[in-house]
């Protein structure tokens, strides 16, 4: 058991635990905050995977923007602060069962993969993955087009969201 394995297990525990809290906790704001914790754990995993850029972007985008948005939405759509009434549907055991089934299937598939226990090769010290990522995003031979499409999607979503949420304008 090495240091990185310990870090992995700790963050995995954080992720799974927080994720379970997200889907089970009764208070919605707590759910959103647990989501933040889970996403933070995912960011740690990215760091462990030597995708530092993604780790930081994960924090900026998810915790800095998406989670805040969620919290806002929770507060804006809640008349009183205490969440009353049942938070889960009556069919939750079925959902749980299905989730477990899917999990079993996925785990089965994962274990069935060839060479699944492989470990990663070292990335040579002189390789600049952030630079390579930047190059890949804007180079026409690589992913410039998907990148641009994604940005157009974001713009469209932004405008759409503003329009939908702004409601009817009073003349």
């Amino acid at each position, binding site marked *: 058991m090495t240091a990185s394995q310990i870090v992995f297990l700790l963050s995995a525990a954080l992720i799974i635990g927080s994720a379970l809290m997200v889907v089970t906790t009764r208070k919605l704001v707590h759910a959103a905050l647990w989501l933040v914790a889970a996403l933070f754990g995912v960011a740690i995993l990215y760091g462990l995977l030597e995708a530092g850029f993604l780790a930081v972007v994960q924090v*900026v985008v998810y915790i*800095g923007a998406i989670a805040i948005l969620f919290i806002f939405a929770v*507060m804006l759509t809640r008349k009183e*602060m205490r969440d009353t009434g049942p938070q889960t549907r009556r069919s939750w055991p079925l959902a749980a069962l299905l989730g477990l089934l899917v999990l079993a299937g996925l785990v089965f598939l994962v274990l069935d993969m060839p060479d699944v226990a492989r470990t990663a090769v070292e990335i040579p010290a002189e390789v600049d993955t952030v630079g390579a990522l930047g190059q890949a995003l804007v180079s026409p031979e690589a992913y410039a087009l998907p990148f641009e499409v994604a940005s157009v999607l974001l713009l469209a979503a932004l405008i759409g969201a503003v329009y939908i949420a702004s409601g009817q304008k009073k003349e």
Partner: protein
Amino acid sequence: MNLWNDPINFIAGWLRALLTGWGLSLDLAKIFIMLVGVGVLIVGSLVLAIFLVWVERKVVARFQDRVGPNRIGPYGLIQPFADIIKLIIKEDITPTTADKVIYNLAPVLALASVLFLWAVLPLASNIYGVDLNVAALYLVAAGALGTLAIIMGGWASNNKYALLGAFRMVATMISYEIPMVVVLLIPTLLAGTMSFRGIVESQAGAWYVLMAPLAMLIFLISAVAELGRAPFDLNEAESEIIAGFHIEYTGMKFGLFYAGELLHAFTFGGFVALLFFGGYQFFGLEKLGPLVAVTIFLAKAMFGYWVIMWIKYTMPRIRIDHLLAFNWKFLTPLALILLVVTALLHKLLAGLPLWGITLIMFLTNVLIAWVTVEILRAYGRKQRQAEEVLAPAGQH
């Protein structure tokens, strides 16, 4: 490797020898040394925060033509400790309807988000927490955590003023993050790296404040907004929402918020120094030794902090719609234009000597500033005319 040239590694080496001598394995010793390093950094910055309390009080007093703390200790230097004792012995109130865990977590997170920043601050060329290759983004990420802390505090207090304050603060922070990120890209672009050490090292020839003075200004302004200090301190506008998101906090929890804010301001002063004023460099003086470099850096950071204070105690608070309009209609477009122009110039001028690049970039910045000011004047004139139409001259 000696104490004067490379203090960190010297001490680390000494500690490692000591610990392995005690029988610890090398890995454990490394982890222990790391923890010690983190602890020293945190303690150091917190002690700095205590000092900053005194600085803040002294400077505001001078701005307001007062003397400031002068009774306890020489020049009132012991005053902050008295303040701390007062905060500690105050009653620690948690409102009954508050969300206890989150309520107590928020101030910790607020301070932590600032301390996170210190991990990437290079105090000297070989004194730094970690040389991250995405440090510039890390700065923004830590800011995101600060936002989270504030909304947690505001919401968990279960007080409408607190919630309003938090909303205002978050709106400000999220909005002003945009010009800040855009402007952060300019030093990144000029240096060709997001690592702060790389950015500092690449300013050996010319500070970026000469190449991108407008970027520096925008960064400073959005930093002030991120801090929620005057003139952007709507989150704690006393006359409207009493004290904003920390209205319910007392004692040391409030103290944590307060210390976090002061330290945050100082840290941003440090970032301004780092990104635009050459960091720990000062005309070759830093070569004397790392401790000199640290002193230079802290002095520059203190200067930045002083400017932020200067702004705070000189400007009146502005209205929320003005605040947002100022960001979206002015700072963001300007930052984007600057970014594009800088990128183009950087590419076009690639072959020129450094002084040529610097001169042209500076002149371009002056040009952009002039055009901006002209546009603003035209806009202001139009506004005035519109007001005169509404209320003809002489009626008031």
